[in-house]
């Protein structure tokens, strides 16, 4: 509830302003509100999703012209026209945004920039419709919205709704998924997040708010011409988000207010305003990457207990991972995978039994992690197939694995540093969410039950690995060993049938390794098969039911730990050292 306090203060200020200020402040307030309608949506794209769309003014332009044309030429009611502007903005949002799926960051930024230029050019030249350089009047409203304060309250209403919706989205699995593809894209894929689907929805939404903002912008300006939609405006939107801080709603909201007000207070600075914004951008990136939100994040400044120990509770695994009789094995058949001329896996057959711990050892470069990457779908072998029972595991589709019950961790933990530990763990159960994007945005019952269920499950998973006291802490404040357990909790949160662990013991203390061992055993006992890629031979021999030894991409030996320990070639080639 404490999180709502700043919003309550802002709302109070919004409601008091009409009683204490003149019409000028109504216009400035309405401008801040209209820009916020756009920036709030863009915030999901930039601040949460990390997609650097610097030319978003293009959608403001499109929405603005759509609404203005519909009102001026077809006599549509302004509110319907705003909606139509939103629809056009949404469609264009997808067109502008989707290259993000194929292009690198900088390339994407450039295409949005190009798009912004083109939209203005078209508005300029398509004279019969847009009025060309002379433009056309924006939609004008009837009483009570035709007065400055009436319009102010209307735009504030829009802004409040958009704030509420984006805040809901941000705290839903959609928001968590966005941050995941921003900061841990590979891990996001492993948890089944489809970047294409997610970004399509978010670009639709952000395009819609930008389009609606465009319509309102037309009314605010009373008249629109192409020269109102400058690149400077686009940069202002973008910088407002970054000043505010990525992954925050309140921060960009304040950033937006700041950038709208700044030139009004510092009239002599008008000439230098763009320079000032640019300097701010650079300074924020270099000195304060968290933006305003980080300054306001008091909770994460409280020091953490310094001598923390991780005490997993294996006894609670069974309650979390409750499978029933799923009993499919993972089977690899004659898999061959070469990078260039090097055959990383060279005709491997392996069966990983359900509900058992399967160790995979071998010297560096023997193909252990590569095997794991084939199973989890990141690599596409040239030959051979992978199955889960009788079902084929499609090659090269990591985001399909989660739905098939396969979860994994990474050699270097891939967690979202800026999200809380709890949020990180909830990512693991993303595909179990039922609510659609709009249900989440409007906090409909399905969304609320999702959140309740997933939060409870994530807390259970954290309890299993013994980190529940750190649930609200930003993940980047944790120690390395804790991050390893966070990853395991994230994987368990999806209740997998198989858990693939990539060197989970690396960097752990002896005590922690022992606890990890008993946790893994409990996971297997609860019915989840475990594939353990590890260098610590002791751990492998302690807890595995089956061990496969790889060398040069081929199976050197396979059997129980006891068999392997006495295998002559293994002893001489590997264990002997």
């Amino acid at each position, binding site marked *: 509830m404490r999180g709502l306090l700043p919003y309550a203060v802002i709302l109070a200020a919004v409601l008091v302003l009409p009683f204490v200020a003149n019409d000028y402040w109504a216009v400035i307030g309405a401008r801040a509100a209209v820009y916020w309608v756009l920036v709030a949506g863009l915030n999901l794209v930039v601040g949460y999703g990390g997609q650097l769309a610097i030319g978003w003014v293009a959608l403001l332009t499109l929405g603005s012209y759509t609404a203005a044309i519909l009102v001026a030429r077809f006599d549509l009611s302004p509110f319907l026209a705003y909606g139509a502007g939103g629809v056009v903005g949404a469609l264009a949002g997808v067109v502008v945004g989707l290259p993000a799926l194929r*292009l690198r*960051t*900088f390339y994407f930024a*450039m295409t949005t920039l190009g798009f912004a230029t083109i939209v203005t*050019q078209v508005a300029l030249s398509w004279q019969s419709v847009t009025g060309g350089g002379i433009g056309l009047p924006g939609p004008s409203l009837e009483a009570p919205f035709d007065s400055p304060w009436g319009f102010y309250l209307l735009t504030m209403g829009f802004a409040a709704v958009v704030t509420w919706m984006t805040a809901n989205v941000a705290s839903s699995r959609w928001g968590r998924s966005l941050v995941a593809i921003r900061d841990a*894209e*590979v891990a996001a894929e492993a948890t089944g997040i489809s970047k294409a689907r997610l970004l399509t929805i978010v670009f639709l939404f952000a395009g819609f708010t930008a389009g609606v903002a465009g319509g309102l912008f037309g009314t605010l300006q009373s008249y629109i011409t192409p020269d109102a939609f400058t690149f400077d405006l686009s940069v202002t939107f973008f910088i407002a988000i970054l000043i505010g801080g990525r992954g925050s709603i309140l921060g960009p909201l304040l950033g937006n207010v700041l950038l709208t007000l700044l030139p009004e207070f510092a009239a002599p600075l008008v000439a230098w305003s763009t320079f000032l914004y640019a300097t701010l951008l650079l300074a924020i990136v*270099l000195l304060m*990457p968290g933006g305003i939100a980080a300054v306001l994040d008091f909770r994460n400044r409280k020091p953490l207990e310094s001598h923390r120990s991780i005490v997993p509770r294996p006894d609670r695994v069974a309650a979390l991972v409750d499978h029933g009789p799923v009993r499919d094995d993972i089977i690899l058949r004659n898999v061959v995978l070469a990078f260039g001329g090097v055959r990383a896996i060279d005709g491997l057959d392996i069966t990983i039994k359900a509900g058992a711990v399967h160790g995979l050892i071998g010297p560096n470069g023997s193909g252990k992690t590569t095997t794991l990457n084939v199973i989890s779908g990141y690599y596409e072998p040239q030959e051979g197939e992978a199955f889960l029972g009788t079902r084929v595991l499609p090659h090269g589709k990591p985001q399909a694995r989660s739905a098939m019950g396969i979860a994994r961790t990474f050699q270097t933990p891939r967690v979202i540093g800026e999200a809380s530990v709890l949020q990180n763990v909830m990512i693991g159960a993303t595909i179990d969410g039922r609510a659609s994007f709009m249900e989440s945005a409007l906090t409909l019952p399905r969304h609320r039950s999702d959140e309740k269920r997933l939060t409870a499950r994530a807390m259970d998973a954290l309890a299993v690995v013994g980190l529940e006291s750190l649930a609200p802490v930003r993940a980047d404040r944790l120690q390395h060993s804790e991050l390893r357990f966070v990853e395991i909790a994230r994987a368990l949160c999806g209740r997998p049938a198989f858990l693939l662990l990539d060197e989970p013991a690396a960097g752990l203390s002896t005590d922690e390794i022992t606890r990890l061992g008993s946790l893994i055993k409990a996971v297997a006992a609860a019915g989840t098969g475990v594939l353990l890629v590890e260098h610590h031979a002791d751990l492998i021999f302690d807890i595995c039911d089956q061990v496969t030894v790889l060398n040069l991409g081929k199976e050197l030996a396979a059997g129980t730990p006891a068999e392997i320990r006495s295998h002559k070639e293994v002893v001489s080639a590997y264990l002997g050292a």
Partner: protein
Amino acid sequence: MLAAILAAGLAVGAVYALIGVTYNIMFSASRVMSFTSGQMGMLGGVLGTLCISRLGLPIIPGFVLAMAGCAAIGVVTEVIAVRPVLKALDQHLYVLSTLGFALMIQTFTAIEFSTEPQPFPRLIGIGEGGPWDEKFWLPVVACFATIGGLELLYRRTLVGRAFLAIAEDNFAARALGLPERNLRMASFALAGAVGGLAGFAGGELLMAFFANGAMLNFFGFVPVALGGLGNNKGAVIGGLALGVFQQAANFLMGGVVASVAVFAVFIVVLLVAPQGLFGAPAARRV
């Protein structure tokens, strides 16, 4: 008519290509694509005008001073906008830091130099505005001289090979004891000078104008996208092709349709071949 279009097209194409090379040099040294690349081109023209027309220096010292200025801005880019964000390369903060710095350069120039295009001095005085005027062939000569020079530098000199080593594998190069930071600064100085040369050689064509920075930033990036990141020959082919295509489209279809056409080609090529037409496939992620 064809001659006029070809001359102008190849000339602006050569300027675009050189900006593309600027992008490439910066990228090779740091894995960073910088929004300041186009601004270097703008500064080449502005500093050229400042040194020669305003300070009254002879052409050669004026040229050297302008290039030195651009190289210095290149180094500053490295120090304030690139180096601090290198450790978090995967967060793409460089997009923001270089955008910020580029906007600072641009607005500063607009306010302190001029918001109107200023004349660039006539350098040699060959040609009377016809297709063989120096303003058309100077950029082309500069472009090929630069490519040749870079080839020599990379293949024949120790420093050049060290550049290549850094571009190939940063960590390995550092492990070999190469002074990675100094080489990176040198690369940015070189990139600044190449970008400046683009603006200087194209000065008579594009004039000294603050808005050229943003324009070159975009059109200089297109050859990089077409030719593949890091591929200088690809950038030259892409740049010249873009220049001719753009001028032909300008002439045949008029200003607005032409820019739409250029953009459409850019997007389609990118989506069909995100690595560019001559680029290498992406690196492994896991």
